[in-house]
């Protein structure tokens, strides 16, 4: 490995010294990754991959990295943790890739964390949640805007408390991501002395939520924190629409997965109104940085052909940003030395199409940039409406804020 990075560096020096005519003959820089292209995470995985591919094409159009073309080596991990160890071993030992990107999501990423730590390899994370907290790898950088583990629940509860919320109901799916959110929500609530009046964990694949929502309503909570997966998110909102949730509820939502995807959003339509939920990127004024608009122009065109999420707000721009960070680090260090790149990534703030990114020691964002946004004025069956601003008003973080919370929840639904 050391020998190869040395060679890479030597080539880079040779490249810089000899001008562009020699550059085209250099072998490409290979970036390896697995990506869920089948299975439960495939929808997200494909959108994320498209974002990375757009970056690859952009960087190659500019002449590549260190004058070498960038090539992606991508395998399908079937959304499963059991596939990724063999795939990453192949990427490193057989394909001899120069850099590694992680697959989308926590489950496929978790098994490769010890592997990259043992081998001393740089890994750019792709929307995992707290996957490095136990491993403690110092060459891991997550592109997701999560930030510190408790910031997610803290931001939602900040909004809720400002609106006068004093007690909380928790409704969570019995699955990995939702349970992680629930754990931090309970901790934050305890620290702030917010009593939890209702705490229901439901099994995955639950479709009928009316009895749960009735029980929740009977507990008369002020704050309803929901951590759910796409099919349940839809089921919960339908049940809330039919049964109502009571006038006491100031704020509803928080960690509902699925409400970021175009198909789910257009399917639910007006049922979304009033819900305050997390997001990563939204077409609001405060979210446009250098290159953001150009990226989405390209994405919108290519998404049709690639048959992925037509909006692509949730993951795709972060895939692109992951590439931008590598581009900046390789450009600044003028080498493919992974330790050098890691040092650069850790010590600097990086300009990307999703805003400036700075990392803390654990490789997560220094500050959370996870948005909490409220759905407003959403009509039924119209995907295009989500491209305009004002449909999801950003309430948190303050520097990206585009409006104030409308409370109580029932008032915001109209």
């Amino acid at each position, binding site marked *: 490995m050391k020998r190869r990075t040395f060679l890479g560096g030597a080539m880079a020096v040779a490249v810089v010294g000899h001008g562009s005519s020699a550059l085209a003959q250099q072998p490409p820089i290979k970036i390896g990754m697995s990506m869920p*292209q*089948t299975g439960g995470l495939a929808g997200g995985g494909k959108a994320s991959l498209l974002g990375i591919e757009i970056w690859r094409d952009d960087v190659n159009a500019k002449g590549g990295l260190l004058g070498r073309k960038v090539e992606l080596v*991508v*395998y*399908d*991990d*079937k959304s*499963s*943790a*059991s*596939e990724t*160890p*063999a*795939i990453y*071993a*192949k990427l490193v*030992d*057989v394909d001899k890739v120069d850099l590694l990107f992680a697959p989308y999501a*926590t*489950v496929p990423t*978790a*098994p490769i*964390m*010890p*592997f990259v730590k043992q081998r001393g390899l740089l890994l750019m994370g792709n929307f995992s949640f707290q*996957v490095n907290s*136990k*491993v403690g790898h110092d060459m891991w950088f997550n592109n997701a805007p999560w930030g510190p583990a408790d910031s997610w629940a803290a931001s939602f509860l900040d909004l809720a408390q400002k609106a006068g919320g004093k007690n909380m109901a928790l409704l969570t799916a*019995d*699955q*990995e*991501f*939702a*349970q*992680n959110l629930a*754990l931090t929500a309970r901790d934050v609530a305890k620290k702030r002395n917010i009593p939890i009046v209702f705490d229901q*964990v439901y*099994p995955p694949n639950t479709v009928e939520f009316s009895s749960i929502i009735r029980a929740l309503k009977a507990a008369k909570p002020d704050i309803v924190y929901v951590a759910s997966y796409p099919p349940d998110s839809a089921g919960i909102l339908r049940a809330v629409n039919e049964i109502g949730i009571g006038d006491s509820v100031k704020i509803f939502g928080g960690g509902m997965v699925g409400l970021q995807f175009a198909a789910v959003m257009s399917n639910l339509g007006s049922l979304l109104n009033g819900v305050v939920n997390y997001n990563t990127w939204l077409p609001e004024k405060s979210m446009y940085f250098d290159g953001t608009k150009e990226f989405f122009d390209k994405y919108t065109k290519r998404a049709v052909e690639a048959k992925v999420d037509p909006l692509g707000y949730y993951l795709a721009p972060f895939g692109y940003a992951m590439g931008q960070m590598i581009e900046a680090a390789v450009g600044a260090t003028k080498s493919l030395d992974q330790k050098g790149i890691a040092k650069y990534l850790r010590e600097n703030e990086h300009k990307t199409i999703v805003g400036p990114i700075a990392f803390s020691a654990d490789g997560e964002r220094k500050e959370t940039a996870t948005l909490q946004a409220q759905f407003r004025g959403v009509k039924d069956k119209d995907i295009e409406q989500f491209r305009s601003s004002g449909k999801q008003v950003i309430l948190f973080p303050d520097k990206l804020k585009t409006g104030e919370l409308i409370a109580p929840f029932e008032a915001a639904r109209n």
Partner: protein
Amino acid sequence: MNKRSHSIAFWAAVAVFLVAVLSMTQIVRNEYPFFAGYVILQFIALAVAWSILGGYAGYVNFGTNAFFGVGVYTAVALFNATGAPLVVQIAAAAVVGMTLGFGVGLLTLRMRGIFFSIATIALAIIIETFVMNWRFVGGAAGIQIQRPPVTAPFDSYVKMLFFVQAVLVVIAIAIARYIQNSRIGRGLQALRDDELAAECTGVPTLRLKLIACMISGALISAAGAPAAMYLQYADPSSAFNLSYSVSALAMALIGGTAHWIGPVLGAILLGSTQQLLAVTISSEVNVLVLGIMLVLFVVGAPKGIIGLLRPRYRLRAGGKQ
């Protein structure tokens, strides 16, 4: 060849296999073959273990994933609690798998055919739900595991796991071969063809079914136990993934269930194809290719590869020999 020389040839082949595996771990430096090879060996063990109940006795167990997951989580729980070494984890998983197999065996008292299969799926769901709510082993969020240092003569943990899984394959095959050639195997074959008739002619059907379930369960769980250390991560949805059930069943059926070599051939063929497709075509197409392969075998070779290779087994599988 008589029975004795058959035995000598079998054990000689086993010795050659194990020596080859061991020397491979010492000579080959590239780790990828061990990662991929481990998965293929794991599937051989699973398919052979599955066919003890599913092939010899004809009770189609769709709960391979339940036994596999139980193996994984027994290892995780034990490692978490006591830091037990790998061998102890595997032995404990085998014991727990055997106990679970006893329970499944009792199910066969009341259920046969499709109803038994459905009950085994239900079993997997029940156990997965239990594990999801067991915080000690990470619950629904999963758990990351730090491997202990590797034991000599191996220089990497994956190489050691590769060798361990090879030993498990040998154990599974040796047991399957013994059962096939013994009174147990003949009794299972009789009850597969007609359970009532077998019972009437004095075959102790319940006892045989219990033995088959317990052995099959113990072997599947034992094969699952090293997966915790292989992945260094365990989460219920991966450990109890239905694909283990489908793959084990498909491998045994493609290879043929009348002889222990059937599941071995099926697992090598299907397992290698899966590994190969994962790093070549690597898209939705690989699922399609596997599907087509299954359909072709079901239509073209209903008795599996061994049915194609040796017509003798076709007869035996039909119960006429």
